[in-house]
């Protein structure tokens, strides 16, 4: 019963090997190397201008790398024309052909491949069913909503069974509710197709929820590649720590270090943490601690931790965020259960903040507060 694209063969691996691209003095992509497994859903995550689109354009063949190679499966695509690459791309603004109907748009990649009428119609029907647009075959793109146009773009990209699908912020133009809905559908569709997906987004939540692995980019460089959990729990540098999820980054000075465990003097007291790179006493450093890992208690004389004063509680639904001002003026965020004792603390109350040492990551190389 499941004929056509529903039972397609699986995706191909993608190998990005030392790729760079410069525009004049701007280095858009700087020596990026990355292996994407066949059938994997990999997100390229980074702020605007970090080189995500440029990297995707090079994979699609619209930009030439200055250095490096691009392989799909074991085929070197570096110098292959865009129309000969056989990998699909979903554009941010959909790029539907406005003078063609939905069905004609989806037929386009089949025509270029010389697929006959009967097979074409069958594949178009299947693709439309996959994106739940069966009724809309005869419409023009202008007669569809943004979400529907997005689905047509998707159908057009999957209809020719591409082993790799590139997506450049495909949900960026949709409102939040629709975006979350499409995230789930996209992910299910990818699982069913088995295609390799490289997905560009600047939305870290989207990247964490959808991806098998996430590649974080900044200033054209690949700063960390890992599973979503890894990025969240073990960010490799302060940029990733700050970019993914909510994070306190507190400046201080190392007072003692043995192996990766270290003690650090912060605004308001001594704290503990784990350093990914060896540090020496006296070095400037920053402690990264998630708000949900901060333990707050009413101040008691001699209690270990950072002494501070509660300034504000922000109700957030299931959780409440508590803002604590440390003596030097540094702000610390703590996230607690809305029904917990801490959430009942009043502004102005003196509090002590602490955490389990293995929850805090210590990064070097930052000037301590004056």
């Amino acid at each position: 019963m499941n004929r056509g694209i529903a039972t397609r063969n699986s995706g191909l691996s993608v190998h990005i090997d030392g790729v760079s691209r410069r525009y004049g003095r701007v280095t858009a992509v700087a020596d990026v190397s990355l292996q994407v497994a066949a059938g994997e859903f990999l997100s390229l995550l980074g702020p605007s201008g970090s080189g995500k689109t440029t990297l995707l354009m090079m994979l699609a063949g619209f930009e030439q790398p200055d250095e490096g190679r691009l392989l799909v499966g074991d085929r070197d695509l570096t110098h292959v024309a865009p129309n000969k690459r056989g990998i699909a791309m979903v554009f941010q603004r959909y790029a539907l052909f406005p003078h063609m109907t939905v069905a004609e748009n989806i037929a386009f990649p089949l025509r270029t491949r010389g697929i006959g009428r009967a097979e074409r119609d069958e594949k178009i029907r299947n693709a439309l069913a996959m994106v739940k647009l069966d009724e809309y075959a005869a419409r023009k793109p202008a007669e569809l909503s943004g979400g529907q146009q997005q689905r047509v773009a998707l159908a057009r990209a999957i209809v020719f069974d591409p082993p790799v699908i590139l997506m450049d912020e495909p949900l960026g133009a949709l409102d939040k509710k629709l975006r979350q809905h499409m995230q789930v559908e996209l992910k299910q569709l990818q699982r069913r197709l088995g295609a390799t997906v490289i997905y560009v987004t600047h939305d870290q939540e989207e990247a964490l929820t959808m991806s098998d692995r996430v590649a974080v980019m900044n200033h054209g460089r690949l700063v960390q590649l890992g599973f979503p959990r890894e990025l969240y729990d073990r960010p490799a540098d302060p940029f990733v720590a700050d970019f993914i999820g909510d994070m306190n980054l507190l400046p201080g000075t190392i007072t003692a270090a043995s192996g990766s465990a270290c003690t650090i003097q912060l605004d308001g007291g001594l704290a503990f943490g784990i350093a990914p790179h060896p540090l020496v006493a006296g070095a400037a450093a920053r402690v990264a601690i998630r708000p949900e890992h901060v333990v707050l208690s009413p101040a008691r004389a001699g209690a270990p931790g950072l002494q501070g004063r509660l300034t504000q509680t922000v109700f957030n639904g299931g959780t409440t965020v508590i803002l604590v001002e440390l003596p030097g003026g540094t702000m610390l965020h703590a996230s607690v259960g809305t029904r917990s004792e801490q959430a009942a603390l009043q502004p102005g109350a003196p509090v002590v903040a602490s955490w389990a040492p293995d929850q805090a990551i210590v990064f070097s190389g930052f000037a301590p507060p004056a």
Partner: protein
Amino acid sequence: MTTTGRATAFRGQLSLPLTLLLIAPLVALLAWTFFLPIGRLLLTSVTEPTPSLDNYRRLLTEPLHLRVMLRTLLIAFGCTVSALLLGYPVAALMARPGRFWPKLTAICVLVPLWTSALVRSYAWIALIGRRGVINTALIDAGLIAQPLNMLYTSAAVLVGMTHILLPFMVLPIFSALLSLPADLPRAAANLGAGRVRTFLTIVLPLSLPGVFAGCLLVFVMALGFYITPALLGGPRTLMIATLISQQATEALDWPFAGAISTVLLLMSVGLTVAFRRVLRLDRVVAHD
């Protein structure tokens, strides 16, 4: 957004009385110097020498005049076709990404527009006349013994008019190509289309509004073109505008000149209306 969408942004910003006041001077000037004399000329075509349609009967039954009208239509059509064939690639070059070539092309298209058609027609005489640049060069090179007859032929009129009308073809096509999102040809390539297929199935259909606008402009302007056919054409390449001028200034038959003018006007307006129909149909495919 289409240009129509942009045009509406300013709509309704000025009150109606103010709008009328602002256009009043122009309307008065046009009424006094343009519509009134033209209206009177056209009117004489049915009132003089006697109130009848005799002038029109004469125009439509004399083979000489019919031939002039047919020739005018043919030359205008030829101009349109050659301007389209020559102009589309130029517009495409102008709309390319990058700086150098688009800028250079734009200059080459626009600068002649600032030179009078009279000067440019004389330039053609200097070029293709019996003792013109081309004949002299060919004779000096020993390629021909006698000068070629190029001037005062239909071909000379066609070439000269195409040259002068070319910018009016290039600019609307350029504008249509410029408003084509760069993602569309890229999407086509990504989906497996080569350059030719991308052009034929995506770029060309989406630039058709510009093509239609350019063709209409060139055709209508060519219908009533005066200077170039008068200078580059001979007695056997008489066109409508020249005929009108002859009737008015040599034969002093103003009513008949008025009749010819009316026919020319009707042809131009009729064509514009017909083209607008096509153009409106095309709006349906207008891209975001």
